[in-house]
C-alpha cells in the first residue's frame, strides 16, 4: 500500500501538471491550424515552430518546475501535518518509503515528459495539418528527462532536509535559477557550454541560427549518463538523511 500512499500524496500536483501540459499541447496545435505559418515568418518550417512552442527555453523551464514539484513531500512534510509518527510506526523501513516515493515520482515525470512527445506527432497531422517525426519528439523527451531527474532528485533532497515544507519547495524552485546565476557568474557558459541545463534540454540548438530545428547528431549519451549518476547520488544522499533523522 505504500505505492498508494505515495500516489495520493502527489496525485493533485501530478494531475494538475498532466492537465496543463495536455491542454497546452492541444491548444498550440489547434492554434497552429489558423496562424501557422505566422504572417511575419511565412517560411518558418513546421518543425521549427514546434521546437519554438514545445522545446524552446521557456518550456524546458516549465518541465523543470514540474520535476521539482514532483520531488517534494515525504516524512518532513508529514511531520508538519502530524502524521509522521503514524507512518514511522508502520512495519516498514524508511528505505522502502523513500524508494516507493522515488519510483512513483519518476514514473509520473516520465508520463509528463511523454505527453507532448505523443500528442505532437500524433495530432499534428490532424490538428495542424503538418507532420512531425516521432523520433524527434521522443529524443526531446529523453533530453527533458535527463535534466528532469536531476531536478526531481534535488527537490527530493531538499524536502528530506528542510522541515518547513514551503522552505523545501522554495529552495527547490530556486535551485535551477541559483545554478544559472552561479553558472553565469563563473563564466561557465564560455568554459563548458554543455552545462547549461535548458540549452541541453532544448537539444543544444539555438533559435537564432534558423533552419528546421531538428536533432541530427546522436543524443549526448555521456552527458545524460553523468546526469543520471548525479541524480542517483542526490537520491542516495536524501535516503541516508531520511534514515538517520529522528522524528
Amino acid at each position, binding site marked *: 500500500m505504500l505505492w498508494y500512499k505515495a500516489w495520493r500524496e502527489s496525485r*493533485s500536483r501530478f494531475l494538475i501538471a498532466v492537465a496543463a501540459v495536455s491542454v497546452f499541447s492541444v*491548444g498550440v496545435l489547434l492554434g497552429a491550424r489558423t496562424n501557422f505559418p505566422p504572417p511575419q515568418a511565412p517560411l518558418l518550417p513546421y518543425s521549427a515552430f514546434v521546437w519554438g512552442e514545445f522545446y524552446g527555453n521557456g518550456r524546458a523551464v516549465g518541465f523543470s518546475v514540474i520535476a521539482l*514539484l514532483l520531488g517534494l513531500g515525504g516524512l518532513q512534510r508529514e511531520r508538519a501535518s502530524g502524521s509522521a509518527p503514524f507512518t514511522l510506526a508502520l512495519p516498514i523501513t524508511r528505505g522502502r518509503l523513500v524508494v516507493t516515493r522515488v519510483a512513483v515520482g519518476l514514473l509520473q515525470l516520465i508520463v509528463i515528459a511523454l505527453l507532448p512527445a505523443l500528442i505532437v506527432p500524433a495530432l499534428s497531422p490532424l490538428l495542424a495539418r503538418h507532420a512531425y517525426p516521432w523520433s524527434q519528439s521522443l529524443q526531446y523527451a529523453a533530453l527533458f528527462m535527463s535534466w528532469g531527474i536531476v531536478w526531481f532528485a534535488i527537490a527530493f533532497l531538499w524536502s528530506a532536509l528542510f522541515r518547513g515544507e514551503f522552505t523545501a519547495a522554495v529552495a527547490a524552485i530556486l535551485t535551477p535559477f541559483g545554478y544559472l546565476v552561479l553558472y553565469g557568474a563563473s563564466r561557465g557558459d564560455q568554459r563548458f557550454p554543455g552545462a547549461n541545463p535548458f540549452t541541453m534540454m532544448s537539444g543544444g540548438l539555438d533559435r537564432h541560427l534558423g533552419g528546421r530545428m531538428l536533432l541530427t547528431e546522436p543524443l549526448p549519451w555521456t552527458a545524460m549518463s553523468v546526469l543520471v549518476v548525479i541524480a542517483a547520488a542526490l537520491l542516495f544522499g536524501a535516503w541516508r538523511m531520511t534514515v538517520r533523522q529522528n522524528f
Partner: protein
Amino acid sequence: MLYYKAWLESRVRFLAAGAVLSLYCLTFVQRARLDFPPALEPTLPYTAHVWRGIYNGLDMVVFIIMAALLGLGGLERERELGTDGFTLALPVDRAQLLWPRVAVAMVEMAALAAIPLVVVPWTSATIGRAYPAAHAARFAILFATTGTLWVSAGVLVSVAVPGSYASMAASLLAQVTSAAVFSGTLRAHPSLSPFNVMNGARLSLLDRSTDLFIAPLPWITLAAFLLVSATVLAGASAISRRRDF
C-alpha cells in the same frame, strides 16, 4: 499583529527570492566588466545588454515565478498544519485574515521588482558603465504593476486549491500556460500580455537599439492590470468566506 504573522509566513520565500535576484544582478554586472561588449555584437549598447540579461532574462523569470509563490499560504495551508482551528477562533473575519497576507505579499513583490533598480545603476557605475536610474525605476514600476497579477493569481489559487504543493503546481502551471497563450493565440496583441508590458518587449516603448524608454509608461494598461488583480482578489476573498474548515 496579522501583518507580523503574514510576514513570518512568507519571509522565507521573500528572502530566498531576494537573495537569488540580487546575486544575479550583481554577478551579471560584474561579468559585464570582462565580457562586455560580446564578441558577436561589438556595437551592442550596455543598456541593451542589461535589458537582455536582466529585464528580459533570468531576473524576469525568477520574479514572475516568485511573485505568484508569495501569494500562496493562508488558511488552506494552516488546515494542513492543523492551526486553522486556532486562527479561525480569533475575533477577526475571513477578510481580515486575507488582506494583511495580500498586503505583505504585494509589498514583498514590489521589493523584488525594485532589486534591479537598487543594484544595477550603482554597480554599473563601479565598473565604469552607466545605467540611468530613472529608466531602472520605470522598469521597477512595470514589474511591480504586472507583478500584482501574479500575486493575486497566487492568492486565488491558495484559496481555491487545497494542499500547499498542489497550489504551487497550480500557480506555476497557470503562469506557464498563460505565457504560452500570450505567445501563441494572443500573439497579435502584445500590449495585453503582462509578459510584454513588464519589460516593454515587442511594444513601441523602448528604443530599438538602447532598450531605454522613448515613450511614457502605458498607464491605461497598468490601470487595467490593477483592476484585474483587484477583481481576482475579490473573488478569492469571496471563496475564502464560504470555505468550511
